[in-house]
């Protein structure tokens, strides 16, 4: 279950890349270069990276509206991602999807989703299809604490459980469904306790500890691949930024946000790798700088890319 030093360096690189991408996204929005809204996962990088580290490259994910991290961790091309973000023809979805709909089926990302819990029912079908075709892959379905209160959650976990489908459900509990605190939205302490209702394992982990996330999800992935059925993993984390660009944080305190910033998943993992002798400070800085440089290059690519042609506006509705 332990990862090689090389792999751990890669994970740190992914975390920095996500942070760099989202900081840049925010900056581009402020500059008026991006149309629409976005949902940032700054502060939640360990959840995306640790979860996806437990997958094989050919495994699949379903992501959420807060999905930049999942996409990057699954191996997306930053250029195509940034181009999509900027609505360009060279983007993953030819500028038709934007931040909330980035999909990269080649890397196993079956798509972000603009609807809370929108991907959860789809996970059943993907799991069923994989099982029927006797494919040795699993589907990891991300969703947030808010999605755990929809009917889709109940239907999907039950169906995956009764059919022992190769699905891993990863609930990224970032404490708020838009403005509603988990304390007000749940009468239970741990969302993972709901797993018991479906007869499947449920586990809650420190979602800001990338290795803890990796280990919990790996166990769930191994179980799913061996035919043992689904698991519900809850990564307890926190989003530093607002729900979307319209959020002015009326529902939480500055102190709370600052307290969580002290639990930064990237700083924590970096310090651990240095402590383990896997990295020096200089090497860690270089990984960080390379991540920011890669994002800058992606912005240059996106800015130089063409807008979609109006002639193509009706393309892609039907196969």
């Amino acid at each position: 279950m332990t990862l090689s030093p090389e792999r751990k360096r890669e994970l740190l690189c992914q975390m920095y890349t996500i942070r760099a991408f989202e900081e840049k996204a925010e900056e581009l929005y402020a500059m008026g270069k991006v149309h629409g809204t976005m949902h940032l996962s700054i502060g939640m990088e360990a959840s995306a990276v640790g979860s996806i580290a437990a997958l094989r490259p050919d495994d699949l994910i379903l992501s959420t509206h807060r999905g930049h991290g999942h996409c990057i961790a699954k191996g997306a091309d930053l250029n195509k991602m940034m181009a999509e973000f900027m609505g360009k023809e060279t983007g993953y979805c030819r500028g038709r999807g934007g931040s909330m709909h980035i999909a990269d089926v080649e890397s196993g990302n079956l798509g972000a989703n603009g609807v809370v819990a929108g991907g959860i029912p789809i996970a059943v079908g993907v799991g069923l299809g994989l099982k029927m075709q006797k494919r040795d892959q699993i589907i990891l379905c991300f969703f947030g604490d808010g999605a755990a209160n929809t009917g889709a959650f109940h239907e999907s976990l039950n169906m995956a459980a009764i059919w022992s489908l190769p699905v891993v459900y990863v609930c990224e509990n970032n404490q708020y469904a838009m403005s509603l605190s988990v304390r007000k939205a749940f009468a239970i302490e741990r969302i993972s306790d709901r797993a018991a209702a479906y007869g499947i394992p449920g586990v809650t982990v420190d979602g800001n500890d990338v290795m803890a996330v990796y280990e919990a999800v790996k166990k769930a992935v191994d179980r799913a691949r061996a035919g043992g059925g689904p698991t519900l993993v809850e990564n307890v984390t926190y989003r530093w930024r607002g729900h979307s660009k319209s959020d002015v944080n009326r529902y939480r305190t500055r102190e709370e946000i600052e307290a969580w910033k002290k639990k930064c998943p990237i700083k924590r993992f970096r310090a651990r790798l240095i402590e383990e002798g896997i990295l020096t400070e200089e090497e860690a800085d270089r990984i960080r700088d390379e991540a920011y440089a890669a994002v800058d290059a992606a912005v240059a690519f996106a800015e130089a890319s063409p807008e979609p042609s109006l002639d193509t506006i009706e393309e892609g509705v039907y196969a």
Partner: protein
Amino acid sequence: MRELSYAEAIREALRQEMQRDERVFIIGEDVGVYGGAFGVTLGLIEEFGEERVIDTPISELTIAGAITGAALVGMRPVGEIMFMDFITLASEQLVNQAAKIRFMFGGKEKVPFVLRTPAGSGTGAAAQHSQSLENWFVHIPGLKVVMPSTPYDAKGLLIASIRDDNPVIFVEHKLLYKVKGPVPEEPYTIPLGTAEVKREGRDLTIIATSIMVQRALQAAEQLAEEGIEVEVVDPRTLKPLDKETIIRSVIKTGRVLIVHEACKTGGFGGELAAVIAESEAFDYLDAPIVRLAGRDIPIPYNRTLEYHAVPQVENIVEAARRLAEGRV
């Protein structure tokens, strides 16, 4: 030619496609040993096993999600929603997910599934088991909507729908399940987007969907005895719509009566009327376009009230006669 009922024709289409393509499977509530609420899938679980005829819990949203997800990874699922009324529970997945995945993802993915569902009144099942909600889905880019009116069309359109690479909402009518008609034994397809002139006539055109095609044909028989020759056009697929066949018929007759069971306001008849009014057929119209549709009420339980909630043969006869006689 051999005769089959509408339900048998659908079952034969399912069986033949499942024999031909192992990616095709059935999923829905009570579709297994029960055979579905109307017996359409009866016997298929014995032939194909519970791996390919899958009974689900009562979870319509996730039935729609399951066919979407399975289609995304290469299967060709045929889902069933027991009554079209319950498609309300599945709508998020159909409207926001399945219909839009291809477009949102830049035209790269495809979602080839069929969702079968029985619609319509006449069974005394009242307001929550009798609706005709097809036009909601006609309104959604990315979905196709098919409504067969005969056993022959049901088989050919279902096979075409299963082989289509898009999400198809396949709307059956409960009162048609026992209606018999000629159906070839071998598999065949009717291309989606091809209307059919079910009866030729010179005096007026009736455009009807689903069970209203059968009622329009009966009305046409009666009107023929009065010397009124009615042409009956069945679009068969509401989306894509074969506008050409419709327009050609209206140009020929100059009078058009649109008949469907769904509530008039916001129903597909409005779209048909607009298609005609926007086309070259407008200049050939000798009378206003007339719509005969379900009343704008929920379907009532009482037998008499239920009967009068939607167009019946005599209503079609009367409306067509008025139109043919220039009384509109």
